[in-house]
């Protein structure tokens, strides 16, 4: 019966539905993009490895300027003693340098580190081996290439055992990493890892940029973090040190992105609201047009709740059909966005359930006023209407 009424005015029903379709579509797509972005970043953070604490000098926060480092290798030894397990502490000193093979030259991040790096970070090797303790102790000129650097310099040729020139100094390639992608805009596939001692000499620094500590379990992270920060602060009175954990990063970024998703959903919700007003408007017109029909139905014994139900079902049907169409297009659109653009989009069941629930709710909410008007019509007056 309700479907029949909607079919009578195909164009009008379609246009009314369009408002709901657009609203639901917007909710589904925008939430998918927001969620996709969040998931992508969380994956990046988790991809670093597990239970990592990054210790850097100064204060870390969004918008804080990087601080000149005062940390050196002696501090690394100190932290190793503090942590108790030397294998769970590694180091990083970074510098951008040119790397050359014959006439091919690429710009890469040279990272000085040590043999403990694979104990803490997830950096699977494709070929060759990691840096060893001996490499670090004897200041060997050996390098492990990031996948992109390797591909650019050597193409399909196996680089192991070959020579690369890093800012004029020759290094022997001992390993090649698997691609791991980027974290916070740091292209980790464009790194070249060399022994930290070799790197300090190459760059001409005795400092290091940061220390990474691997905790043995999630519960160990917080006490370990405090111990390291307090230890270093005791060593350098008046200086600040920060230890950032993945949980903190996830928490901060998660809340920012969650907020963003919420704002996007709210904007989309407004268009859904506008669609709902359209439904209300059309239902009022429909009630006016069908006044005689309502009068007749009441004369034949329709109770107020029968008439109310009839118009409410019509409104809900209108928004529900619109909602389902919107969800289908929204899911299709999200998949399309994910397939053809770099924007990540993740469809979540809750956004679909929400969109569906809201479109049904919009039908009820905006259908009630017209339906009540219909239900309360005086049958005598309604029958006389033109």
């Amino acid at each position, binding site marked *: 019966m309700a479907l*029949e009424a909607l079919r*009578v005015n195909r164009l009008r029903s379609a246009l009314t539905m369009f408002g709901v379709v657009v609203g639901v579509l917007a909710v589904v797509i925008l939430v998918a993009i927001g969620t996709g972005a969040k998931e992508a970043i969380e994956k990046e953070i988790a991809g670093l490895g597990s239970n990592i604490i990054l210790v850097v000098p100064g204060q870390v926060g969004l918008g804080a300027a990087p601080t000149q480092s005062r940390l050196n290798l002696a501090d690394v030894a100190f932290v190793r003693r503090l942590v108790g397990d030397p294998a769970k502490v590694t180091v990083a000193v970074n510098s951008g340098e040119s790397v050359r093979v014959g006439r091919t030259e690429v710009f890469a991040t040279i990272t000085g580190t040590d043999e403990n790096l694979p104990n803490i970070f997830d950096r699977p090797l494709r070929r060759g081996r990691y840096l060893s303790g001996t490499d670090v102790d004897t200041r060997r000129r050996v390098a492990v290439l990031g996948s992109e650097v390797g591909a650019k310099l050597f193409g399909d040729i196996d680089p192991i055992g070959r020579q690369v020139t890093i800012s004029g100094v020759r290094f022997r390639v001992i390993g090649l990493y698997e691609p791991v992608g980027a974290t916070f805009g740091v292209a980790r596939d464009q790194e070249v890892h060399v022994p930290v001692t070799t790197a300090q000499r190459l760059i001409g620094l005795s400092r290091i940029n940061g220390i990474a500590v691997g905790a043995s379990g999630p519960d160990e992270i917080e006490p370990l973090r405090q111990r390291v920060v307090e230890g270093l602060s005791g060593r350098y009175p008046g200086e600040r040190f920060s230890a950032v954990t993945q949980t903190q990063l996830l928490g901060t970024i998660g809340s920012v992105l969650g907020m963003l998703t919420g704002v996007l959903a709210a904007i989309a919700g407004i268009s859904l609201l506008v669609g709902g007003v359209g439904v209300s408007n059309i239902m009022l017109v429909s009630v006016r047009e069908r006044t*005689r*029909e309502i*009068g*007749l*139905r*009441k*004369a*034949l*014994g*329709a*109770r*107020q*709740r*029968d008439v109310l139900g009839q118009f409410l079902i019509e409104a809900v049907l209108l928004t529900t059909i619109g909602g389902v169409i919107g969800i289908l297009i929204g899911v299709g659109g999200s998949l399309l966005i994910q397939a053809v653009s770099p924007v990540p989009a993740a469809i979540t069941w809750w956004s679909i359930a929400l969109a569906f629930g809201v479109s049904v709710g919009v039908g009820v909410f905006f259908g009630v006023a017209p339906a009540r008007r219909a239900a309360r019509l*005086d*049958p*005598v007056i309604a*029958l006389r209407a033109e």
Partner: protein
Amino acid sequence: MNDLEGAPAFEAVDLARSYKLEGVSVDALRGVSLRIERGEFVAIIGPSGSGKSTLMHLLGCLDRPTSGTLRVNGVDVATLDDTGLAELRNQAVGFVFQSFHLLGRTSALENVALPLVYRGVGKAERRRRARRALEAVGLAHRLDHRPSQMSGGEQQRVAIARALVGDPKVVLADEPTGNLDSRNGQEVMGILADLNSAGGVAVVLVTHEREVADLARRRIHVRDGLIELDTAHEAGGGPHAGRTGRDAP
């Protein structure tokens, strides 16, 4: 529904109805008392504006009196809420309107079945009873036709079938021949007369046409909101003709 067996179809005492039209009170009915037994064939006649339509609406429970008492099948309508009135309309009364009032996009069968929808009758049973009602008015061959595909006479017969489908005690017909030519008008009146004589259903007819009214066994003349003549009494003026100052109970 407290349907009292043997109670008159309608029993009205001092029925009055006034409207407010732009702040001015208009008395459409000024105190009408009448009694219509089951199985009667009554015509309510009067010029336009006499109050006959208002009386019809009150008898059909489409409207409530301003004052006075109305009992339909022995049930005082003042004791019923809107839902109760709707149920009474559905069960006790069948309506036939001057302008047919059929749903335009629905088949004859579905139009006829409509009152049963509000009685909660299942679809198969609705269709069975609607078909029987249409057969009774000679439209067995028109079940799936829409109103626009039928003549005026046929449409009014569909409307009569719809009034009958719920087995009411009374059929109220408001100018049932008003929109029909004389041949179709006669046919419709014939059906109503058969219904009354063969089916025992009371027929109450509102008309301003003398010839139509003459078909009824009893005629009630209404003028200026009062009963001017009721042939059941064969006396000038109804038993309760005259204004009463009584308020609604």
